[in-house]
């Protein structure tokens, strides 16, 4: 098992390398002199020259990459053009709201989607099943920002129970934290929720037709236990897979949601950076997001081996 985990972990390295090459080329291949871009509009010739030599721009591209990757390994993502703050620090300042939002969304979506999908799958054709299918079509088709403004209108402006925007850290109390993050979570989580629910339903429904379900019933096992212990347990792999794929959905959603709800997170950071062409920040955030995506999928790969004894390692 340890060997399996080690092997899986090592297999991540080439992916990370490819990602960092792409991110590296982002700046080098964009039109114009990278040093001029990084130095910003008001820089003098001396500053540009200093940046040029720091980045090793006079040297071959491969050498430049190794210089860049070397500093990357030391946690140095470069310095923001506009704020002159190291990108690592910028990200660290902004990570908490984003991480909070991602986690609450994950929990919200999974906790609702898996039970709902399971019940729908076990009672395929029932009113609950049909309404879930209807809602899932809606959930997929409403753009995140439309849904966000609808929820704001309803919960904040009409009912006045939740704040319109902003973020309150969990360190300032659980109550304010939850009320500030409730709307962003629901908005971001709906598409994710219906995605997981649909896969859960399909998978459980398929499992309900398997021979071992009949065996369990023949043993006199209660239907509820048949569904959870046998059907749902065997559906774990597709469910886990879609949770992993959905993380990509989550990442792109975060960027939009933070803008809609005015949350000072990494998503907002990258939107601002793109508008200002702050390349080091863009590079840093892309690396962060792709790193998270790769790690989540690594965890899921390893999870397979725990969930299904037939996965060979």
């Amino acid at each position, binding site marked *: 098992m340890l060997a399996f985990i080690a092997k899986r972990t090592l297999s991540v390295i080439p992916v990370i390398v490819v990602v960092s090459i792409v991110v590296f080329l982002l700046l080098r291949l964009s039109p114009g002199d990278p040093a001029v871009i990084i130095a910003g509009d008001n820089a003098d010739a001396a500053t540009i020259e200093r940046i040029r030599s720091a980045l090793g721009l006079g040297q071959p591209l491969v050498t430049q990459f190794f210089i860049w990757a070397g500093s990357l390994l030391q946690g140095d993502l470069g310095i923001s053009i506009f704020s002159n703050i190291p990108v690592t620090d910028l990200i660290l300042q902004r990570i908490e709201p984003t991480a909070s939002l991602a986690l609450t969304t994950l929990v919200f979506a999974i906790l609702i989607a898996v039970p709902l999908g399971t019940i729908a799958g076990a009672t395929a054709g029932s009113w609950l099943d049909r309404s879930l299918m209807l809602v899932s079509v809606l959930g997929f088709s409403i753009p995140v920002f439309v849904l966000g403004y609808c929820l704001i209108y309803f919960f904040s402006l009409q009912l006045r129970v939740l704040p319109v925007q902003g973020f309150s850290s969990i360190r300032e109390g659980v109550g304010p934290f939850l009320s500030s993050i409730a709307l962003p979570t629901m908005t971001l989580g709906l598409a994710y929720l219906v995605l997981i629910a649909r896969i859960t339903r399909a998978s459980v429904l398929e499992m309900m037709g398997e021979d071992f379900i009949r065996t369990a019933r023949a043993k*006199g096992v209660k239907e509820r236990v048949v569904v959870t212990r046998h059907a749902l347990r065997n559906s774990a792999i597709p469910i886990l897979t879609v949770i992993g794929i959905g993380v990509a959905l989550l990442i792109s959603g975060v960027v939009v949601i933070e803008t809609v709800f005015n949350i000072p997170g990494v998503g907002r950071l990258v939107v601002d950076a793109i508008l200002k062409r702050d390349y080091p920040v863009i590079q840093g955030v892309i690396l962060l997001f792709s790193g998270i995506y790769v790690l989540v999928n690594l965890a899921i790969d390893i999870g397979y081996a725990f969930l299904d004894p037939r996965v060979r390692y």
Partner: protein
Amino acid sequence: MLMKMPPPVIEVQDLAISLPGGGDRGFAVDHVSFSVAAGEIVCVVGESGSGKSVTAQSIMGLLPKVFPKPAGRILFEGKDITAATPSEMRDLRGRGIGMIFQEPMTALNPVQAVGKQIDEVLRTHLSLSRTERFARVIAAMTEVRLPDPEGMYHAFPHQLSGGQRQRVLIAAALILQPRLLIADEPTTALDVTTQAQILSQIRDLQRERGMGVLFITHDIGVVREIADRVVVMKAGKVVEHGPTVQVLDAPTSDYTRMLIASVPTLEPKRSGHVVNGDVAVKVDTLTKTYHSGGIFRDRRTVHALQGASLSVRRGETLGIIGESGSGKSTLARCITQLIEPSSGSVTLAAAKNGRAFRQRIQMVFQDPYRSLNPRRTVGQSIIEGPMNFGQSKAEALERARELMKLVGLEPHAVDRFPHQFSGGQRQRISIARALAMEPDILVADEAVSALDVSVQAQVLRLIDDIQKRFDLAILFITHDLRVAAQICDRLIVMHRGEVVEQGPVSSIFAAPVHQYTRELLASIPGRAEHMVPA
């Protein structure tokens, strides 16, 4: 004073289950009555679609939802259970009635340890401590003679053989000492030698405990082996019932007579058949070795095939006999180049007018339900091969119609889809598809194994007929020695990737040399009359 007879363990009275949605008949089970007393084994025998499994499922209260509620009465130890509440039925299942199924491969939950799956019966019905339950599971596993029960408790289904899995299911079904065991084709998916062991085990446990057994099967040989009484079903109706000897040796209904007559005998049919065609295919020391593993794992090597040599002449049928894992399908696939052999050679006779390998050697596969593309008409499936080799569509379609007629189907049925045909018809289509390439050599991999005996007999006749008509060399792979006796001239017996014996059918049957061949012959159910000399 009169002694009151105990009621039968199960008594089915006038059971009727209507068939949902416009089937070819009104009832899946058409007013069926029979009973099973304590200490007897009653076989319900019939072909697919006879309603025998539906009957068994309705006794368990496990009818699929598409069926309406059954009419009639089902008495368990004298008490009508058709009106029982769901919770009463749950209590009865596992505790009063145990059930085992046809497919031990899929009847166990693949992600749960097998010991836990036996334990689930105890957890569901009794409140015992963990250690008590563990002890009882181990005892049950020991009773069905599973090796190393403590170790196997934690094993997962995929790590067990088919026979071991069926034993796990038997242990789970019998752990609470039910008064009735329902066995729905429990040995159909198993090898003959394993089948023989499982049958004797069911018989032994039944005698020890004096329980009633309702045994569903399509195999007359199995009936002869195990049953005290027989119920013969056809199209939802009971056509005949009575003691085994009476029903099998003096059947009163035509259907039973037909069923018994369709069972192939072990009499080699081709003893007088002279083969003098040219050698069509010659196979020389073919091997196939699989490697698995890598840098982080021990390398594992599986010798699936260890040097098989054979040759087949035109007009000759060579049978390849063996159980699952013997390498017979690997051999067939290496010969047809569907998988690449590790070493050895396959030589076809010199080709006339440069025909390609694929045109000259064709296969018919085991599962007629899955070997035809469900989204293409059978005509499209038949003409695909010839069109690949340049025949025009009109020409190929014309030929497809001829072939459909040849295999005994309507020529215009080329426009229909596979699901509109029965299993036997689909296998005829698969044969037509193979013949469309005008092959010299036909490889039939368990081509009749999934079929009912009466259909099996027809398909065997068809294969026999097309061989004569096209002077085909046939490689016939089967696990069924009765079938082999019908159609083969010579046999190759395979065991663990090796050819252990070969020769004419009659001499192998009369005087098997290898120990394994003897075992195989002795395991054929219902052949007490043909004792194999030790």
